[in-house]
């Protein structure tokens, strides 16, 4: 994020200082629902080519908390349905001179490509199986909130790594802050070569024992069709996160939406060990921090000093 027009496209583009600055800014926003004037007069367009609850709602709310004008365009029901190309959609939306375009797209590199067609700053809200940088940042935030630190924390990421942008961003983010990642899952869902990201890899669910945080990935039903796993039943039996597989003090995270009874036992999901709702809450302040950082500038800590515009 060092070029003149800054974007947030991938954790791979960030340095440790960037992550720390964003987490600090998010921390300053936390605990208050006051509306801040930081982005008054700015506009944020959310362009979502895939369904989303948490990410879209939190980007909308984050922009509004910062007093930006915001609009959200979903591919379904838009010109995309009529075959409009990504390029033309971006050219069209850019004619409104938005300051930020937040884009979620099913294809790898879509957000990066968008930067070549718009003068807006671009935030990647998920590009295919590639990256989901704000998710990783909010996950770091939630981990730090729960454990009081990030350095040296061991996170086991369990499940369908192959198809997961969340896993790719999180492994990189953990590496940046000095935490340790171990990927655990069925051999067919652990991509060949993934250890190049600087993580450990295991097919044995026992590998979670050593972790302070067990991060559970969503297991999608269509994975049986391509014979990645024989059944959700066997997946749950071998890699499902049950109370019996956890030790006291371990935290459990999940990016949502959860398949209770598949990758995570309902008793775990509802237990105090689960940080799932904390993650959602972190999503709001982290996305406020990202938008403020991009539009208002990376002014460390100053965001907290901004006068509340109104109290929501």
């Amino acid at each position, binding site marked *: 994020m060092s070029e003149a027009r800054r974007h947030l496209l991938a954790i791979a583009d960030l340095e440790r200082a960037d992550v720390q600055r964003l987490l600090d800014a998010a921390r300053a926003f936390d605990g208050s629902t006051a509306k801040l004037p930081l982005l008054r007069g700015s506009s944020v367009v959310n362009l979502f080519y895939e369904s989303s609850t948490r990410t879209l709602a939190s980007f909308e709310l984050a922009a509004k908390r910062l007093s930006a004008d915001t609009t959200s365009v979903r591919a379904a029901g838009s010109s995309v349905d009529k075959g409009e190309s990504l390029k033309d959609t971006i050219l069209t939306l850019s004619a409104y001179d938005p300051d930020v375009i937040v884009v979620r797209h099913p*294809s*790898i590199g879509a957000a990066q490509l968008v930067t070549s067609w718009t003068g807006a700053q671009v935030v990647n809200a998920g590009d295919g199986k590639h990256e989901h940088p704000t998710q990783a940042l909010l996950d770091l935030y939630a981990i730090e909130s729960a454990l009081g630190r990030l350095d040296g924390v061991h996170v086991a990421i369990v499940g369908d790594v192959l198809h997961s942008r969340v896993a*790719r961003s999180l492994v990189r983010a953990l590496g940046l802050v000095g935490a340790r990642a171990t990927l655990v899952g069925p051999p067919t869902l652990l*991509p060949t*070569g*993934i250890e190049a990201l600087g993580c450990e890899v295991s097919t044995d669910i026992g590998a979670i024992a050593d972790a302070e945080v067990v991060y559970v990935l969503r297991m999608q039903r269509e994975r049986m069709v391509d014979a990645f796993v024989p059944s959700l039943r066997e997946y749950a039996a071998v890699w499902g996160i049950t109370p019996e597989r956890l030790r006291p003090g371990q935290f459990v995270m999940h990016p949502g939406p959860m398949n209770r009874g598949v990758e995570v036992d309902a008793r775990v999901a509802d237990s105090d060990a689960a940080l799932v709702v904390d993650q959602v809450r972190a999503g709001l302040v982290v996305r406020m921090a990202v938008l403020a950082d991009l539009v208002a500038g990376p002014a460390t800590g100053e965001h907290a000093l901004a006068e509340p515009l109104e109290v929501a």
Partner: protein
Amino acid sequence: MTLMSRNGRSDSLVLEGRLVAPAQGIDECLRVTVADGLIAAIEPAPASELVVTPAFVDPHVHLRTPGREDEETLRSGTEAAAAGGYCAILAMPNTNPVVDSASVLRGLVALAREEAVVPTGFMAAISKGQEGDELTEMVELAGAGAAAFTDDGRPVASAALLRHALRYSGPTGLPLALHCEEPSLSRGGHAHEGAVSAELGLGPYPSAAESVMVERDLALAALEERRVHLMHVSAAESVAALDRALARDVAATAEVTPHHLVLTDEAVRTLDANVKMNPPLRAERDREALRDALRRGAISCIATDHAPHARHEKEVPFEEAPFGVTGLETAFASLHTHLVLPGQLGLETLLERMSAGPARAFGLPEPRVEIGVRANLAVLDLRAEWEVTAEGFRSRSANSWLLGRRLTGRVVQTVADGRVVHG
């Protein structure tokens, strides 16, 4: 087989330079006199900075005609070939409609008579519609001038169909050119399986998707004692399979593309749609195996797999972009720059693999420098430096992996079938 181009003049000219004709063992400064299209005299000449060489033969070109004339026509594609130093090219049948009947083939041959600047041969499909279900009318297609048979763009998924194709087409004497890809292993694949695809999340296209098919196809070629040509070989395992087959005297030839010889999957990190090809760019060890096989001659052909695509079709995210890049106008320069100049490949070997090698593999007349033959010559300026730009192509498409790169060495003149077609 029919190689067809515009009926036209025969030219007279004199070419002078360092004549490098590796297949004939010639490397000396000579003056070649062409009279009415025929080589009339070869005489000693003073030292020169230009290289004169038998012109190139590309056994793997997509001319997109019929069906996608917005991407390439016989005229634009052969003008691109001329600019690249080619005197003969073979066009792929994966057009719309597919070249799977003699009537479509005859139409193309007739069109080539009107439009083709460089002699062009047309391959016909192995299976009707390239669907992999029924054989094309191979005997009639051969009679109509097919250069070879291929379902390129797609593999022949059924081993039984390929076996019958090899057996049935035997009497035609034409080779089968095989795009080796096991579709169940490549499905959803966009990049070589390895650290790069894992890190980016791109669907993996493992080397084995190619090499298991290479093994199968070579086994069937051995069984039917037929000649096969392996297209765009990309994986070290495929080279190993080819070596084993050649050691058993299987009649196999193979080609490699400039992009697989120069790039690795590291280039995919840019997510530039112009580095998306099928087969994908592979790892360093694969590239080394390909270079080694090319040096040894196990791979005897350089083929561009020139695959023009409309600009808007490549201006999309990587996974949505079609496979393929152009190459006719940059093949020599890219390989001279990236292999010859760094000492990875001798100039003579490069020239042989771009000319005599592919001609032999497909039974085409070998471009030779000999008194009395039609002139097929390329003149090369090995010192010329130039930048590849989207505006600089004769091709209708500019989806080159070399855009913005500087190259050293350029084709300055091409004589194809006795006519000056470039420079």
